[in-house]
């Protein structure tokens, strides 16, 4: 059992290495490929999909919209 556990952990190290290489090749920032993928912040459907830190549209986005002649109201 000790040997099995030891080899399992050694194999797991190899898996992490492969996980990094494949995800970097694919450009996956959150390591989407593989079983040890990282958790990603969930999208809140009730929230406007702006790029501000809280998910709201920030002042710059509203300014951009006004500049382009679009409405600053909800999308």
């Amino acid at each position, binding site marked *: 059992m000790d040997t099995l556990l030891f080899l399992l952990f050694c194999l797991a190290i190899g898996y992490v290495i492969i996980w*990094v290489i494949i995800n970097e090749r694919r450009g996956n920032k959150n390591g989407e490929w593989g079983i*040890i993928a990282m958790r990603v912040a969930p999208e809140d459907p009730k929230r406007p999909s702006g790029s501000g830190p809280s998910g709201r549209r920030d002042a710059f986005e509203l300014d951009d919209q006004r500049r382009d002649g679009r409405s600053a109201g909800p999308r």
Partner: protein
Amino acid sequence: MRAYIFLLMFVSYLPLIFVTPFVGAMLWCWVSVMSPHEMTYDFLPFSYAAVVAGLFFLSILVSPERKFPPNTAVTWAMAGLLVFTTLAQISAFDPIMSYSRWDTTWKGLLLSLLTMPLLNSRLRIHAFVWIIVLSLGYFGLKGGIWTFMTGGVWSVGGVAGMIGDNNHLATALVLVLPLMVYLAFQSSQRIIRIGAAAMAFFTMVATLFTYSRGGMLALAACLSVLWWRSSKKAITGIGVLVFAVVAVQFAPDALWARFGTIQNYELDASATGRLDIWRVALTLASQHPLAGIGFHGTTLPALVGSIDQNVRPRAIHNSYIEVLTEAGVPAFLCHVTLYVATLFYLRRTRRLTRNLPDWKWAFELASMMQVSVVGFAVGSFFLSLGFYDGWWFVVITATALDLHVRESLGARSKELSSSASNFRTYPA
């Protein structure tokens, strides 16, 4: 058979170092923290660590990735430690005895410095945490299972490397325990979350059953801060409670008797022996403040006898006094700087990423690393782990996390600033 399979795995990982030097950093971390090669029949004429280090160097040289560590307090403190420990070796009272520790120390520091610039993305930081967790988690999981199988009547001991001693193993497990909790919270797959949580539970059990009093105090400090810093206090609270109930129900009397000696330490020869050697070590440190007495200096009968003939030569059993006595005051200042700077970086990371959903992972990692630092700082007070490379790996990960967060958030705010200035120049 085990040795052949391990060798096959090890050799198959080596060419991957040339895909990216970061693979070399991960392999180095694994080989130096877990020392898997010391747990198999060693029939090779070369050192596994030397092979990994050599290929890692070569890969860094040919790779276009950044080669030099960033300009941070941790970088300078590590570089300082490298210089001052080398001076300590040169001026050591017994250079031959001191050499083995210096040899692992300079390699550990240099390769940690080379690893730091490679930890430049969430993916890599997360992967590096995995490597640290797997390298030490093996001992935690195995020790925890073994404790349940034997009823806890035997102490869990280390196997190889710097954590061969049960006290050292206990503190190393406390160092890595919060990182397991981080992985349990920040992995997307349920099976991995459960696996990491189970590993954390068995690691807590293994730490307790090392019968290490210092380890027990470190674990108590770690669990207290873990609950305080956890974003899911209910889950961690229940976990700690379950662990406490299991420990109280199943722990043998011998364990409580062992921990009971903390209250009456003056009656315990081991505890009073430590206080005596601390006193001798501090006197030696005051006599040799610049470069210390060299590694393992307090195990020299002549040197200890020159201060107090009634004190038995032994290891110092206090990381802070160990660095101060063995490598001098400048090295001690570098050692303390590592703690202060790491805590500062982690606090800043928490402050910057608080309330940012995209950066919750960084917030949780910084929180759990704070727990690691506190646990290790407490454990280090009772044993000789002043030159432990597992600790340096945690330090560089915390530094890299801080840099990554600041660079990414800085780039985002610059982006917003430039769009604002574009708007100002736009005709009305």
